[in-house]
C-alpha cells in the first residue's frame, strides 16, 4: 500500500513542495495541507517542513505552535502517528511541546547554510529504522539551530535513546568542529519518548536526488515507507 503523508504549510513555510517532491521519489503520496484546517486523519505520517513561519517573530516556531494544526498534531501524536519536523518544523515541534528542549540562536551568531554530517544514534523511530550507526550527509540552513535544555532533560533523553541525529565528522566522530551551531552534545535531531515524533535541523528533502548533490536524505524518507511495510508505523501506536 502507498504511504500517504500530510505535509503541513503555514504562512512562511518554504520546504513543503520540496518534501512533496522528495516523497514522490520514494513512492509515497504527499498532500500539502494548510495549517488552519489540517485534518491528519487517514494519513500514515505528517511532516512539518522548514521555513520561517510568521517571520520567526517572537521566537522561531512560536506563533505556528498556537495554530489549530498544533492541536491536530497533538491528537495525531496520541494515536502514534509518525511526525517529522525539519528545521523550522523541528523548532515548531519543540514549541508545541511534542519534543523536549528548545532551539536558540547559533552560538557563533552566524546563519549557516552548508553540508553537515550526522550519525544516526537510534533506529527506534519510523524515520531511522535500520539506519543506526550510519553517517548521513545533509544540508543545513538556519540561524537558530542550537538545541538546549536543562541538564535533567538532557540526561533523560540520552538515557532513553531519544537522541536520533548527532553532528559528526564524515567518519562519525562527534567533534567540536563538526558541530555547526554549538548545539548541546552535538545534537542535530531527537525523538519523543515513543519514538514516533522526530525533529532534526538538517533538510532530508534537499538531498534526495543526485541533481541536488546528495541522496542521503532520501534514506530517511525510505525508512518511513519501509517502516509502514514492516509494521513499525502501526507498532509505534502502542
Amino acid at each position, binding site marked *: 500500500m502507498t504511504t500517504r503523508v500530510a505535509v503541513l504549510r503555514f504562512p512562511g513555510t518554504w520546504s513543503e513542495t520540496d518534501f512533496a517532491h522528495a516523497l514522490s521519489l520514494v513512492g509515497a503520496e504527499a498532500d500539502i495541507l494548510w495549517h488552519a484546517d489540517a485534518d491528519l486523519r487517514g494519513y500514515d505520517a505528517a511532516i512539518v517542513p522548514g521555513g520561517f513561519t510568521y517571520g520567526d517573530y*517572537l521566537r522561531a516556531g*512560536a506563533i505556528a505552535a*498556537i495554530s489549530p494544526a498544533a492541536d491536530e498534531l497533538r491528537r495525531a501524536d496520541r494515536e502514534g502517528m509518525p511526525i517529522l519536523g525539519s528545521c523550522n518544523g523541528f523548532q515548531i515541534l519543540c514549541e508545541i511541546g511534542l519534543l523536549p528542549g*528548545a532551539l536558540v540562536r547559533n552560538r557563533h*551568531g552566524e546563519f549557516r547554510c552548508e553540508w553537515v554530517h550526522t550519525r544516526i544514534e537510534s533506529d527506534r523511530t519510523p524515520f531511522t529504522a535500520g539506519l543506526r550507526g550510519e553517517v548521513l550527509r545533509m544540508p543545513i540552513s538556519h540561524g537558530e539551530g542550537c538545541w*538546549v535544555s536543562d541538564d535533567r532533560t538532557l540526561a533523560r533523553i540520552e538515557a532513553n535513546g531519544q537522541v536520533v541525529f548527532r553532528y559528526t565528522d564524515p567518519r562519525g566522530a562527534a567533534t567540536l568542529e563538526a558541530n555547526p551551531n554549538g548545539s548541546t552534545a552535538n545534537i542535530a535531531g531527537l525523538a519523543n519518548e515513543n519514538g514516533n515524533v522526530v525533529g532534526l535541523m538538517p533538510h532530508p528533502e534537499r538531498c534526495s536526488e543526485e541533481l541536488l548533490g546528495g541522496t542521503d536524505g532520501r534514506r530517511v524518507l525510505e525508512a518511513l515507507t519501509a517502516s509502514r511495510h514492516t509494521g513499525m508505523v502501526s507498532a509505534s501506536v502502542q
Partner: protein
Amino acid sequence: MTGYVATIRVRPKAEIRDPQGEAVAGALRSLGVDVADVRTGKEIVVRFSAEGLPEASAKAQQMGDELLANPVIEEFAVEVAAE
C-alpha cells in the same frame, strides 16, 4: 471594563547564552565603552480591557505563559497599569 497596558519583558534565562548580547557587547567595546556584559531581551506592550487590576494582571501573566516566553529558555516579568 477598564483599559490596561501590560509591559511584558522577556529575556533569556541566566544560564542560556545570548549571542545577540555578546555581539552588542563587542560593538560597544569597539566604540570605546568599557562594558562587562550585555544581555538582550524584548519588551512587549499590550493594550487590553479587564474588570479590575487582578484580572488584568492574570491576563498579562497568561500571555507570557502561553505565548510570549518559552519557559525552557526564557523568563519574563509583567508590569500592568491602568490606562
